[in-house]
């Protein structure tokens, strides 16, 4: 059973209950910031610059990718995808290379730039609460069910149903179905997704596959290249020995090489 969130931008009223609940749940210091940081794991903001108070509003949080790019690049397995859905972080392993930040297609992991002993901060879909059978803190806090928690299949069905019943009120796409190989967090909206600040140029196959295509060939490559190099050595060393054995030819050979 894999779970996730569904965010419906047409319902969000921008109250910010989700981001406050997240701060409290994860004991993050300070007030909710305008952008996600190592200390603010989710934000809500208006994406209507002309009339901010009219919305629509948009949440930013970790998408909990099905094949998470962040987990694929982390050299020390500090980021992992749990079978339940959340992509979690183990700060005890992290060495702070920040490759996850560089690689995440949704720009989610953030860093404690102000700390001498820094760690990464990112939404972990309340993995701890999930274990106790509770929904994520943000979904629980949302007064209008703009963010709902549930089984992934159910959420997807629900999203499609809302679009089907109100085709003029929604963009005909569930964001997160195909983006970067699919994500556990899904989003639907009445305005085009790029207007919400979401990336719409993401590949549909997980970026991790591109790296794996190369990395998975390494063992074969090492074997072939190793034998090849030894072969070169064997041939040229033989040539050298033969030249040596013939004695006077050695010098010719040097001259020959010089003019190669």
């Amino acid at each position, binding site marked *: 059973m894999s779970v996730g969130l569904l965010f419906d931008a047409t319902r969000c009223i921008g109250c910010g209950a989700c981001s406050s609940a997240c701060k409290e749940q994860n004991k993050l210091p300070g007030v909710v910031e305008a*952008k*996600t*940081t*190592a200390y603010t794991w989710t934000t809500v903001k208006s994406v209507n610059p002309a009339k901010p108070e009219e919305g629509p509003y948009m949440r930013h949080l970790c998408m909990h990718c099905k094949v998470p790019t962040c987990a*694929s*690049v*982390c*050299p*020390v*397995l*500090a980021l992992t995808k749990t079978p339940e859905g959340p992509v979690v972080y183990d700060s005890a*392993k*992290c*060495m*702070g*290379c*920040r*490759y996850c*930040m*560089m*690689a995440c*297609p949704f*720009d989610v992991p*953030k*860093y*404690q*730039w*102000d*700390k*001498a*002993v*820094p*760690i990464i901060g990112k939404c972990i879909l309340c993995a701890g609460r999930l274990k106790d059978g509770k929904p994520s803190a943000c979904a629980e806090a949302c007064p209008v069910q703009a963010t709902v928690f549930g089984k992934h299949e159910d959420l997807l069905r629900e999203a499609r149903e809302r679009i089907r019943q109100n085709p003029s009120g929604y963009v005909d796409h569930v964001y997160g179905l195909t983006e970067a190989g699919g994500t556990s967090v899904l989003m639907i909206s009445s305005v085009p997704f790029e207007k919400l600040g979401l*990336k719409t*140029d*993401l*590949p549909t196959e997980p*970026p*991790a596959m*591109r*790296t794996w*295509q*190369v*990395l998975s060939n*390494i063992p074969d*490559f*090492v074997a072939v*290249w*190793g034998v090849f*190099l*030894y072969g*070169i*050595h064997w041939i*040229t*060393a033989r040539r*050298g020995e033969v030249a040596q054995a013939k004695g006077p030819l050695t010098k010719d050979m*040097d001259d020959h*090489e*010089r003019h*190669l």
Partner: protein
Amino acid sequence: MNQTATLPARRFRIGFWTGVFGIIFLPFLVVTFLRFFKGLGAVTNLSDKFPWGLWIGFDLLCGVGLAAGAFTITAVVHLFNLKKFEPVVRPTVLTGFLGYGFVILALMFDLGQPWRIWHALIYWNPHSVMFEVAWCVMLYTTVLAVEFSPVVFERFGFHAPARIIHGLITPLVIAGVLLSTLHQSSLGSLYLIVPSKLHPLWYSQLLPLFFYVSAIGAGIGMVILESYLSERAFGRHLEMDLLEPLARAMVVALGIYGLMRLQVIVRNGSFTAITSLTYEGKMFLLEFVLGVILPVVLLSFRRMRTSPRWLVTGSFFAVLGFVVNRLNISVTGMERAAGTRYLPSIPEIIVSVGLVAIGMAVFALAVHFFPIFPERKLEGGD
């Protein structure tokens, strides 16, 4: 007579450089202190939008890349058996070793928690390019140290270990070439994961190959440059009849590399970014003219290759273009997706310059105490 003429001059130069070294070193210590007690934010221009900067783009990517001469030259001498290049081996292997030392030191600054670097050895993630790079860099630095160690052993009269290592040189060199091929190309693979972020002038599935071939080209350029610098600093250098064929190899490597780059750019349709001279287009032109066109065109002429001045100029362009290329990939090409510009902070530059200075100082000391360069003049030929 020759000796008496050069000695005072040499002493003056070393005095001068010691001064420069001291001037760089003080701020370096201050920045180091701030870095470790106040965090990365206090000294760098890095941010959540731009998590990798100068220390990755220059110190890691260029440090490793420009040390590629070591595996190339050892392969030429020990695998291709072109023994006449033997005199090039020692200075090149030493630079390689110091280059990797430089990279590892720089990582100590860049990693958030460098004291955990050994985590890469116990938590394995074979899906991570960074994991592979970490292993290769560690193993290859060891290989370089072993390859260089006979020089040290012999200096102190330990002939037995030197002989053992000499007997193992073929497997050592093969291991070195394998490891280098892997991680030189893997530094390119690091960027395969960002198809939606890196500008198409630089993004390509062929990035690993590009990194490998350009490192061979620029690595050879470094060998030539170094010979020139050593001549100026220590009055020791490599002979032109060794450098001229190296320059030819560099032209071939850079030529192949340049053609492949152009082919990819034409195919993926980003050529218009060059012709319309966008910011990225201009930076690409800078890198390509410096790093490929100038060295290839200049050094295609035998007359240029055999003139020390032009040989050094061409190699200098190749190395410079290489550095611009790596910075383009790590900075310029990522800026648009990040939605911000990044310029390194003064402390970031101080650290990079300071580390380079340490590397050069160690090189100078090594040349002073160990027989690194062939001493033809003093010993009257071999």
